């Protein structure tokens, strides 16, 4: 878990009626040095969410008092834009779409790995409030020109296929953060299911061969059983 090393302490609100799950998340977050608060009732959760600042909210879909969907709608209706990650038992099709349409930012189905939850929360929480559109992404000596669709590292031109370009763009935008396999599948290829073959691994290894193989310092790292990270360190 050292991979989530806290550059800064984050504040999370967990609204979840299953105490076991909530404690698991809270303990994991505390171990990483983050602050996490836990409420099991929907109404209490909403009151807390509007009265105190949080970096992100973990919200169960089914709650006593007030359900998750209503909480998000109430938050968005009152101009509270705290990122919300839905946690749900139901891996339904419509549930995800409805959750996102109501104003949720991400969606995770139980049972989940803590690393997956944390990767998604980090991506949400550290999202800059106003995203200035950059035309060139830079990580160490790797440069990606989003307008000319070109890539070069240490002055050497690297030819990328469109699918490799899209993958690298996502990784560079999330520089220093962990991105999981499912995050890549959803965000880069719009795959909302678990492929049974090594689609992600294959694309990562092809990309790695192009951007890292001939260079001294590897940028793209694999975190076993967790995901990947593109890091300048």
């Amino acid at each position: 878990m050292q991979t989530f090393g806290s550059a800064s302490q984050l504040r999370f609100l967990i609204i979840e009626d299953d105490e076991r799950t909530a404690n698991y998340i809270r303990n994991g977050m505390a171990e990483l040095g983050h602050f996490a608060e836990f409420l099991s009732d929907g109404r209490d959760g909403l009151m807390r969410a509007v009265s105190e600042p949080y970096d992100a909210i973990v919200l169960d879909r089914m709650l006593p008092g007030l359900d998750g969907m209503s909480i998000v709608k109430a938050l968005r209706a009152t101009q509270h834009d705290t990122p919300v990650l839905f946690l749900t038992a139901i891996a339904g099709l419509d549930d995800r779409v409805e959750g996102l349409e109501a104003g949720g930012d991400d969606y995770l189905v139980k049972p989940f790995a803590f690393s997956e939850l944390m990767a998604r929360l980090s991506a949400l929480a550290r999202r800059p409030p106003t995203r200035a559109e950059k035309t060139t992404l830079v990580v160490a000596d790797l440069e990606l020109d989003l307008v000319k669709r070109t890539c070069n590292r240490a002055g050497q031109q690297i030819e990328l296929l469109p699918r490799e370009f899209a993958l690298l763009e996502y990784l560079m935008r999330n520089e220093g953060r962990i991105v999981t396999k499912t995050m890549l599948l959803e965000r880069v290829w719009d795959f909302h299911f678990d492929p049974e073959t090594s689609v992600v691994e294959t694309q990562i290894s092809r990309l790695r061969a192009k951007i890292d193989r001939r260079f001294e310092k590897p940028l793209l790292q694999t975190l076993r059983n967790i995901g990947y990270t593109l890091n300048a360190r």
Partner: protein
Amino acid sequence: MHVRLLDSTPFRISILLGALFLTSTMVAGIFAWRLTAAELSLRLDDSIREEAQVIGQTYGDTDLTDLRDSVLSHVDATVGHRRVYLLRSSAGEVLAGNIPRANVPVGWSLVDGAMLGLASGTSYRVFSSAVDGNPLLVGASLQENDAVSQVLLNSLLLAGGLLSASVVALGAFFAFRGQRRLVEITTAMRRVGQGDLTARVPVSRRQDDIDRVAQQVNVAIERLATLVEGMRQVTVDIAHDLKTPLNRLAITVREAGTMAEGTEIEAMLAVAEEEIDDVSRTFDALLRIAQVEAGSRRSRFAAVDLTGILRQMGELYGDVAEGRGQQVTVDVSTDFLRIRGDRELLTQMFANLVENALKHGGENAKIAIGATAATGPAVVEISDNGPGIPEDEREAVFRRFYRVERSRTTPGTGLGLSLVKAIADLHGASLSLQDNYPGLRVVITFPMGSAS
């Protein structure tokens, strides 16, 4: 709402009725017209004969003067040549009359005006007799009679035409109204078929037969909606009550794994975690199939370009295949293959099929993805050169948890093809498994007109 009038039963009936009405009016009219015409000519003959007799009676013995005067007074009484008279002496000299000559036989005849020294074109009914050897001709123009029967005929035609037109128009009105209401029922049922259970058929206050049908349809939809909602609720409850303890179990196993780090137990717990993931995956897949089958996803259908999805499949799985010594090629003959559908589900459907081919196609499998839409429906084919599926098992593979004997040992939920089938059904597409000599060829035919 497009109403095709000619397809409507009431309109057809009204057309038929209109035609029947027109025919019977015409037959009756022509009959009446003929009768009237006959009666008119009969009366004309009577009056001609009567006049001839009246004139004849004025004849005293050998005195032609009275006879002449009588003819002259008749000539005076007539307007133009509506009536014609000609009295000649036995020697052939014209004594009185309003026509110069008469080349007609004795008795009744029907002659043209020219025969009487008048303009031709008008017919005359004439009676030629002799009063003591002096030929007397009395006749009448048929113009009047003809005009009367013409008026009669015209009014009959007009009345018949008007009546038939009104019958057809009235029929069209009722047909249109009836059919519009049938279209309302059709529209509602189509929406229900697409998974929108909020659709209802409007019921009017007339309480006619269609209203009774509409009410029953609404009752049926209501009942269906209740059942579907109940089922959805049960599914959600089961999902929640099953997934929550499963999640706790997963948490416990993970925490135990952290505590047992570096021991043999850690490896065993890792296996347990895998098993939990498998159970969860199977459960999620079942839920997904059930949701696809419920059809509510149709309300989110949008225009989707199949070639884009297929090319992406070719690229991503082409790379995967390369690493396994296999091959995936894409041959799409058109630039666009637009259908109405669900991009996410279509992507999963094609991915499932390509992954199936990769998994079961063997070491050197060559997988071909093809699509055509020459003029007809969009057809997508995914074929491999692997062992294929025996013909008698091709239907069964769509069943949940069914696995072909040979592939029992390969990992998988046994739900992949069930989901493929459910997604194809959702799109109204037909799915057929064929022999690729050797291998399996999956052909998906999207319905005509699904493009937009």
